[in-house]
């Protein structure tokens, strides 16, 4: 059995007991990537020599101060390619950023590095994190380790697949409408979408700034709590980061669910859910009830408008945020343009794939004069209704549970030609981003051999209760040690 199948707490213990070193652990991770990633395609690039250098530093730190070192000291992790890493190419899965080497690192990356975590490399994602299947990456296909003919989910598909295939102990992803929770569900790992402001967005290449959050993907709920504790908290370089203290999340998750009130949202459960997904969810809910939680029907009536509001607001922010991608300060540049406008058009035409083009056009449309009130302003008001729904529900219950997605992982290529079908994949995760609340997806079971996640939603800055409920689901499901076995397969380039 590979060391990477152990939870972080066990690895932290082994490192301190000198059963193995961080260099050895890192070498195991690099050889797992070498053996498996040809089939999975999670990594866009690995940083092996820098990783071994960081591992040597972690070993020195652990030898000098084993008690003072962070739990994450010496632990191999990896980063979604929307997170800037100083000196390491960062593309956001887009041709327009090919060759971009950031002069600084994201705060979340810096905090993991300061804790002594070892960075293995950068993970594939949908272009600028726009997508639900990872098929919008300009560079390569990432496959679901549980079934190489299926998508890993998106947009943090590489982050989820790398953990599922046990190539990294933990990864960072970003979630704008479900981009951490959905791939976590599809790949059978834990994924946390922290509350808006809980984790600094400094150094995150923006998609929709009022919705984006960085969060961890891990094998276990405790691992997720440990990573979140390190990356969360106020950052003077992100003025939207929350001031409230993070607290001891690892301790909170041990609280159990005895006496907790869990909301069962009628609007979510009335959706067209795959019967296998529904059955896993119903079983998990009964287990939570058996563990002492009270299941209470709740109503989130604005859910029916949430998807539409999101597909106005997110593209609007995209059209504005991606205006900076003009080929001037970064990107491949322009060879033959006769005017600045032509240069912009050349760089953007060559640099952006179909989904990014669609969203920029859509955003430009809903923000244009004459349509602003009918679409953008109206969507912002619907956003208020969605947030008010959750506020009311969280005065009645401690957390809300639902399936993470209406189905398990779908086949590669199945939804590429139908943008609206792809968008509907995120119908159960999007409302949490609109409201800015906390969420987590935790593996709850399997349907037809594919992992199925359960979503727990908590109030703003309610990560503790989400982790508590997720830990109970994990304990009842008792399947996190189950590991997929991706067979060697020639990686097909996108």
């Amino acid at each position, binding site marked *: 059995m590979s060391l990477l199948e152990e939870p972080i707490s066990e690895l932290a213990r082994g490192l301190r007991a000198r059963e193995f070193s961080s260099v050895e652990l890192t070498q195991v991770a690099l050889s797992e990537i070498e053996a498996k990633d040809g089939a999975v395609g999670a990594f866009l690039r690995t940083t092996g020599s820098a990783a071994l250098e960081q591992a040597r530093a972690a070993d020195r730190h652990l030898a000098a101060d084993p008690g003072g070192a962070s739990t994450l000291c010496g632990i191999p992790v990896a980063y979604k390619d929307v997170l800037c890493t100083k000196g390491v190419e960062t593309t956001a899965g887009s041709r327009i950023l090919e*060759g971009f*080497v950031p*002069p600084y690192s994201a705060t979340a990356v810096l905090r993991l590095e300061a804790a002594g975590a070892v960075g293995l490399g950068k993970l594939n994602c949908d272009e600028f994190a726009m997508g639900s299947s990872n098929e919008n990456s300009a560079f390569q296909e990432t496959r679901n380790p549980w079934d190489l003919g299926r998508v890993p989910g998106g947009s943090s598909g590489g982050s989820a697949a790398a953990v599922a295939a046990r190539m990294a102990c933990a990864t960072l992803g970003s979630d704008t409408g479900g981009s951490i929770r959905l791939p976590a569900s599809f790949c059978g790992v834990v994924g946390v979408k922290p509350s*808006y*402001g809980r984790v600094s967005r400094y150094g995150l290449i923006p998609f929709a700034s*009022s919705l984006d959050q960085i969060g961890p993907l891990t094998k276990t709920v405790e691992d997720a709590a440990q990573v979140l504790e390190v990356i969360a908290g106020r950052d*003077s370089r992100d*003025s*939207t980061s*929350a001031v409230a203290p993070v607290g001891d999340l690892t301790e909170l998750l041990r609280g159990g669910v005895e006496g907790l009130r869990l909301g069962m949202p009628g609007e979510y459960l009335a959706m067209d859910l795959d019967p296998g997904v529904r059955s896993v969810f119903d079983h998990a809910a009964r287990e939570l009830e058996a563990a002492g939680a009270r299941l209470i029907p709740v109503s989130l009536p604005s859910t*029916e*408008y949430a998807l*539409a*509001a999101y*597909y*106005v607001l997110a593209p609007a922010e995209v*059209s504005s945020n991606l205006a900076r991608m*003009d*080929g*001037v*300060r*970064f990107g491949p*540049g322009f060879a033959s*343009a*006769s*005017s*600045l*406008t*032509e240069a912009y*058009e*050349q760089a*953007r*035409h060559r640099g*952006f794939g179909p989904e990014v*083009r*669609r969203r*920029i*056009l859509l955003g*430009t*449309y*809903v923000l*244009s004069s004459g349509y602003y009130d*009918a*679409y953008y302003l*109206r*969507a*912002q*008001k*619907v*956003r*208020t*209704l969605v*947030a008010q729904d959750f506020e009311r529900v969280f005065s009645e219950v401690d957390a809300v549970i639902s399936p993470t997605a209406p189905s398990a992982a779908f086949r590669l290529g199945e939804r590429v030609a139908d*943008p*609206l079908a792809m*968008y509907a994949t995120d119908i159960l995760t999007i409302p949490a981003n*609109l*409201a*800015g609340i906390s969420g987590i997806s935790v593996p709850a079971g399997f349907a037809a051999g594919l992992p199925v996640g359960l979503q727990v939603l908590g109030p*703003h800055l309610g990560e503790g209760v989400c982790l508590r409920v997720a830990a109970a689901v994990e304990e009842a499901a008792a399947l996190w040690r189950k590991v997929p076995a991706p067979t060697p397969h020639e990686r097909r380039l996108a």
Partner: protein
Amino acid sequence: MANLGRLARLGLTPEELEQLGEQIADIIAAVGKLAGADISHVNPTAQVGGLRNVTRPDELVAGLSADEALANAATKEAGLLRVPAIQ
């Protein structure tokens, strides 16, 4: 669509505009659902963090050097970005 393509500076070909135009029309029709929401007496939400007027002391802090800021630019000259003329 052609005007939208120009505003978005995407340099799209007529064929691309036509194909994207159909998809955009479908998406616009789908988000038209918003018209059914009762938003009378509701204020818009632009951000959800609950923070207001976050400021920092008005003091100089070190940023990127000119060389660092220009390191990724494809065309530069004498410490400046070089781009085609605005016409």
